[in-house]
């Protein structure tokens, strides 16, 4: 979380992107100079199915305000089935976070292909806005990690 001069809340967004589709999609949105906020920081993973729920919790613990997971479209997984597992895992994880009263809009899964640079940028813009609206992550925050 960062607060800039005009005091507008700037959320920290961690995006996990699969190497084959979404990371390439993110690259494409760069190649096409499609803007999205600096709030988004991307971590490259081989496949969306590499993302352990622990990583997502860790991000929230250390100060992320939103976490988004991007992978190949269902059926297009480089590893044929990885994102299908991701889909189930994240559906259940997000449902559990929701069940615990954590804001739903702090987490998202989005399928972005290597050709969808525009979608990547649009998704990131949208997601950042949604998290901005929620304000800082307080419900799944580790107080010790809050920046003074």
């Amino acid at each position, binding site marked *: 979380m960062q607060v800039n001069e005009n005091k507008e809340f700037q959320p920290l967004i961690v995006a996990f992107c699969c190497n084959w589709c979404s990371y390439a999609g993110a690259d494409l949105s760069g190649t096409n100079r499609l803007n999205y906020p600096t709030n988004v920081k991307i971590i490259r993973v081989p496949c969306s199915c590499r993302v352990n729920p622990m990583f997502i919790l860790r991000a929230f613990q*250390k*100060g992320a305000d939103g976490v988004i997971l991007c992978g190949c479209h269902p059926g297009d997984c480089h590893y044929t089935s990885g994102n299908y597992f991701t889909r189930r895992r994240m559906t259940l994880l997000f449902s559990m976070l929701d069940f615990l009263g954590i804001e739903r809009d702090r987490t998202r899964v989005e399928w972005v292909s290597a050709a969808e640079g525009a979608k990547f940028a649009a998704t990131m813009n949208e997601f950042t806005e949604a998290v901005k609206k929620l304000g800082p992550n307080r419900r799944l925050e*580790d107080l*010790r*990690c809050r*920046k*003074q």
Partner: protein
Amino acid sequence: MLKISLENLGKLFDAVAEKQTLYIPTDREDGAAEYRKYESGMKLSKNLNTLRSAKDFFFPQTENLADFKMEGKKIEVIDIREESEDFVVFGVRACDARSFTILDKVFLSEPVDSYYKNRRDHGTIVTMACTKPAETCFCGTFGIDPTAPEGDAACWSDGENLFIQANNEKGQAFIDSVVALLEDGDTAKLDEVKVKTKEILGKLPLANLSTEAFGGDTLMEHFKSEKWAELSESCLGCGTCTFVCPTCQCYDIKDFNTGHEIKRFRCWDSCMYSDFTKMAHGNIRNSQLERFRQRFMHKLVYFPSNNNGEFGCVGCGRCLSKCPISMNIVKVMKALEVK
């Protein structure tokens, strides 16, 4: 003796809470009692005892010891200790009151643990005599009289009034601070209550449990007992007994990286945990048998051996009701005392 009518107890609490933080046992929605910071209107629990013991106020489950800032090859140590605020823990039972004698022996012996001492110095323990002991109670085994609790000040109830008496200066200071609300009272009825309570104590199922077979000089005999295998076989290795115990004080020290500093903290640990003694070079107590034995040997043999025969258990009975598989110190004692 000084007294206040039970109806006015709230006023007494309000008065105390005005000057310092007050913790009283109060009922949760699930019926169990727990200590909570007093807020006006909060009712004192009628339960015999709280789920967690009063030890938590002096030896919390986690506490920050020091912070470190690292930059390049440099390390900065930040002493985060602050003088504790004054606080009162009200309604501590005799068993829990005794636990502080035991904890003091650990934490106030050299080298003194300043974190614990800080809280001890600033905390006043006001105890409450028992009138309705439970079947799991066996404080008498360790020479504790629940009708005459220790602590800085002690309270008794005869059903109408709460009587209060100081056991030391700190207790006296506490009474002095609320003396305006107190009046002199007749203890005749209270004495009756005490007699009745003692009668019940004699009838408790564990009334005859004895420590005779234990103590420092029984070390080898008990350590080598073949009964440990059977006693420990169903132990799950969880820390329930340890964490509800008012005298267990094992801890671990760990570091946590917050991203901008390292926080060194101390947290409760349990000798029942499989990784309790796991260190770089290996694990000293590898089997649950060894770990289980350690816990009970510590309370019944090692501790008395190092502390003039004082046992490391106060008979509060928490582990008896909370152990998931109902294995507990009483069963261990009964098994071991048979030659």
